[in-house]
């Protein structure tokens, strides 16, 4: 069988699990969980450096080395297009000209729901500025199509609210988005446990991005390993093609040769 690879912005990956680096106990746990997940694309946030405190404190990028992982800087915490664009430009400087970013522009703090108007505005500027943009969005097929037409390199609708762990609440919309998309569709946000990740992959999503489901598990390293398997199992099930659903039973054992 030829290798089944995920391709984003011209680069191919074996893993279809993308992971965040937030909410871990410490950098050691972050590193171990990410290694267990098998992820090759890892998201980071961009924030002010603490001045004068712990100058020798290890940096996240020492643990998650850009030589080993594809770093995906996000615009988490941005509520306007201007802030998101500014954050992406800082990330590009931080990572020596790196072009791949995760755009998310949020609407409010309670839901962290995407503000699509600001997201589309930021998208326009970032594409013109030469960025490869993976974009967090709501599960609106029309908005997703607009983002693709504007030049997104991946569309990432939410399964449910960020950090909620409620799973994929509207699989029908995500299916519609996938049907019309010519670029990878990833579920980003909402996965709570391994079965949620498997469901996303069985539906035909190209990949899944998650953070809290791993970081907030009792044993994040073990959950990272579970997610790796769920993503692989879901992908294989999708490629294998599931059996049709039937209303009534269908015997697995032959009826011929039954003893009298």
């Amino acid at each position: 069988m030829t290798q089944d690879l995920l391709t984003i912005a011209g680069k191919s990956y074996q893993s279809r699990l993308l992971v965040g680096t937030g909410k871990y106990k410490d950098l050691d746990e972050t590193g171990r969980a990410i290694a267990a997940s098998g992820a090759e694309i890892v998201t980071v946030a961009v924030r002010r450096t603490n001045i004068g405190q712990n100058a020798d404190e290890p940096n996240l990028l020492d643990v998650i080395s850009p030589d080993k992982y594809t770093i995906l800087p996000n615009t988490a915490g941005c509520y306007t297009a201007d802030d998101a664009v500014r954050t992406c430009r800082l990330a590009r400087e931080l990572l020596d000209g790196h072009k791949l970013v995760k755009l998310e522009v949020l609407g409010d703090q309670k839901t962290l729901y995407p503000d699509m108007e600001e997201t589309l505005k930021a998208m326009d500027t970032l594409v013109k500025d030469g960025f490869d943009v993976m974009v967090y969005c709501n599960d609106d097929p029309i908005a997703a199509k607009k983002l693709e037409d504007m030049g997104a390199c991946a569309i990432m609708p939410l399964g449910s609210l960020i950090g909620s762990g409620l799973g994929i609440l509207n699989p029908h919309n995500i299916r519609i988005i996938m049907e019309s998309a010519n670029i990878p569709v990833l579920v980003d946000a909402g996965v709570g446990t391994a079965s949620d990740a498997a469901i996303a992959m069985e539906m035909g999503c190209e990949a899944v991005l998650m953070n809290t489901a791993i970081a907030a598990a009792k044993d994040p390293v073990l959950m990272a390993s579970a997610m790796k398997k769920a993503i692989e199992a879901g992908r294989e099930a999708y490629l294998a093609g599931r059996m049709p659903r039937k209303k009534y039973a269908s015997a697995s054992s032959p009826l011929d040769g039954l003893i009298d």
Partner: protein
Amino acid sequence: MQIQVNGDTRTLDAGSTLLQLIQLLELEGKRIAVEINEEIVPRSEHGSTILNEGDNIEIVHAIGGG
């Protein structure tokens, strides 16, 4: 002269460069990105960039996030 660094006021000698500020903050060689008055200053220009009174400097790095 007085400048703002990540929201805090600092006093520096007039004519200081951005690189001197970064050295003073023990951030030289670290993975950071710097803006002065919302304009990014590329790493290659840190040594040649002279700071001015009232400059608003932001220094950022990568941290854990989703």
